[in-house]
């Protein structure tokens, strides 16, 4: 079944040279895309499916701005070739419950916002798996998400405030 979303805003990928059919579950909805075999998950989400929450900050797994959940775990979607997503579950920032981010807003976790969708995906994963906080600090767990604006206090404080 095809996802009914706005399928593409980018004509660059309309004529794949070696097209690949990939089916996966996107934010709970079965989704099939036909894409060039070299495409990254980040581009599929952004340019083909119109889910522009995840950002490209570096394209090499350093900044975390492209963070999504892959089978429930945070992953840098800039490093995931689309064919690896076949049959898996992808969750993006667009599907989050806005209420869950309220403590982050109150603590000043976002400024320019370019890192924010990625930060939120990691932060909410931590909050849903509080047992990791027994062995790791919030600062250690957030170290894969670069932020150039906040100095991290707003992010760390927001997560601490939201801890169960």
């Amino acid at each position, binding site marked *: 079944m095809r996802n009914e979303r706005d399928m593409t805003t980018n004509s660059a*990928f309309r004529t794949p040279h070696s097209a690949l059919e990939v089916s996966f579950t996107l934010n709970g909805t079965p989704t099939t895309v036909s894409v060039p075999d070299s495409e990254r998950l980040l581009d599929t989400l952004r340019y083909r499916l119109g889910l522009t929450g995840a950002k490209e900050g570096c394209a090499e797994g350093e900044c975390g701005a492209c963070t999504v959940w892959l089978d429930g775990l945070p992953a840098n979607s800039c490093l995931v070739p689309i064919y690896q997503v076949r049959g898996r579950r992808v969750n993006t920032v667009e599907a989050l419950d806005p209420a869950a981010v309220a403590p982050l807003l109150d603590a000043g976790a976002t400024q320019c*916002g370019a890192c924010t*969708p990625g930060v939120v995906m990691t932060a909410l994963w931590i909050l849903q798996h509080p047992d990791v906080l027994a062995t790791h600090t919030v600062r250690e767990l957030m170290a894969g998400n670069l932020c150039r604006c906040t100095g991290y206090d707003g992010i760390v404080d927001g997560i601490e405030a939201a801890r169960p």
Partner: protein
Amino acid sequence: MKRGPPSTGAAVQRREGLAKLTGRERYVDDLPLEDFLWGMTVRSPPPSPRGSITAIRFGRDVDWSQFVVVDHRDLPGPNVVYLIEQDQPVLAAGVVRHVHEPVLLLAHPDRDALRRAVHAVEVVVEPEAPVLDFRLPSRSDEIQYGPDNVLKHLRIEKGDVARALAQAPVVVEGEYETGAQEHVYLETQGMIAALEGEVLVIRGSMQCPYYVLNALKHALARDETRLRVIQTPTGGGFGGKEEFPSHLALHAALLALKAGRAVKMIYDRGEDMAATTKRHPARVRHRTGLTRDGRLLAQDIEVLLDGGAYVTLSPVVLSRGLIHAAGPYFCENVRIDGRAVFTNAVPFGAFRGFGAPQTLFACERHMDVIARTLGMDPALLRRVNLIRDGQSTATGQVINDGSDRVAVLERALDVSGWREKRRAHAAFNAARAPVRRGLGLATFYHGGGFTGGGEVYLKSRLQVAGLPDGRIEVRSANIEMGQGTLTVFTQIAADRLGLAPDAVVIAEADTARVPNSGPTVASRTTMVVGRLVERACDDLRRRLGLSESARGDSVRAALRDWHRAHPDQSLVGEVVYEKPPGINWDDATYRGDAYGAFAWAAYVAEVEVDLRTCAVRVTDFVAVQDIGKVINEILARGQVQGGVVQGIGWALMEECKWQDGAMVNNQLTNYIIPTSDDVPPIRVAFLETPYPHGAQGAKGLGELPIDGPAPAILNAIAEATGADPRTIPLTPERLMTIAEFGMRNAE
């Protein structure tokens, strides 16, 4: 802490915060766009920073008929990016002055095909002798600007430095160097250009829509009625989106005009880091005369900035750097001589702090060198010399703002536990463990708004419109890039008219709709433009025939009544910047009131240094400042924390590696910025001494926090190790080269 009563707008939540947190905020690369081409840049290749272009070869494997190709001959107007001097071409025409200079523009619907095409173009450069080290005098065959490659020379003089130095009982000298710094705004530069009828519309990430408009007007020879610039939500700027977006807008515009279709250009991180501006590298020398008990008698300071291959903003960066170079101290005799020099490096440009972080690093590190020479407590040395009300700065500006700078210092010492920790660290270090601890201090200041007559020259205009539904709309060209403009303007306007925050609309920064309230730079938005918001609110109230005290319901009712009486008309309060009384600046002599107001600060850093690896960890950081008035505590604190962490990066890890005048570590894998795990919580405190000509009493804040961390941290490392570091970034490798001395000293 002095605080006024809570107001209507107090503690307004970041207005666009929820959109950002839920991924709904649309940045330029997120905008829906139909039927467009991607655009990319062909740049001059290494290893020739300087030379003539002798050939441009298009590879045979590409079907070039599918591509839109633009070169300098496609420019309708003069081939310059309009700025202080008209020296930088939009596209290289025959000669190049730095590696990665833009030569051609290409557009194509398929981004991958475009990438391959960019690599298939060969630009051949016949090399000439480049200047690559700004510290060395240029040979005659290297001169490329004026008679001596000096882009700008400025001098500030007060008293008689030569005599005072000759008579001073103690003279301390020092030389300090700071490296380039890359902005690393998380959203790279991006721009969309499209023709909408006759109007060329630019949408993109930028700090200064009217700078972009001017650059387009000039180089495209196109009048303003056929141009429109719209800022899109901007994912960080820090100065990196002050002047550079004019280039990208021109590039996208040229492609769009030639293609007859919309063109989108988004830099990837590698291009962004390699080809855009950075913080100016600097070398600063101090010769300071003092009494034996540490009173400043003379400050002789020499500043040298690497300007890179075009003038860009170097003259004004130099100016701000010089004005801040003597520190927040009183001294009768001061001479500050500065030059920004040409090199064949990718041009340096605006970066948060704008020259002041470089000169304040030198000044504040030098204060600790002096303290060590005199055997004096660094806090005492500063307390003795901090400027008091009634005393004057190097430019002769008499400070009389009521702020208690000693109290700022005392507060930082108290909060950081300075005295107890210094004792504890001395005892800890005496045990000669491989890890040493130290505490370091910096006291400093930052002037808000444009330097000297700059604000007068800008003639900023701003409007507040009264809407028929009882809301108001603030129309300014000042943009949100994370620093909180939307929220702070909302608060200022809501407070002024007694309205609820959601009754305030902030207009999109669209040159077709908002007047030119000046650029979003120089810590001027809250202090200077915020004051225009207040005055435009007052003007709106006057136009409604209301008294000065009218607020809330009476304003809302008057707005509705006015619109009922004047259907289909618009009601706009409008103001132009007016110089506050008593502020005078003479640009010819460089004397007078350099800034309307200075914010004052004292920062304390605590470090742990592992003498085996030379790894430095900042274990505590206290930032105390008097910024006039805190308008939104969460936002203000966030500005300080973010600025401090950027400063920690500049001090310890952010190193641009240069080859042929270009950055070769142009990726986040090997240009290291701090992560959450590299920095401690930044502890922030504010003091408030209102500035009567700033919005609600506010002074500028945005840049201040990047001035203090580097010297405070190096002073802490010096204290911990006994070493005498004078260059940043002080990477472990660099510390290791001087640490042997440190370890011997510590034995």
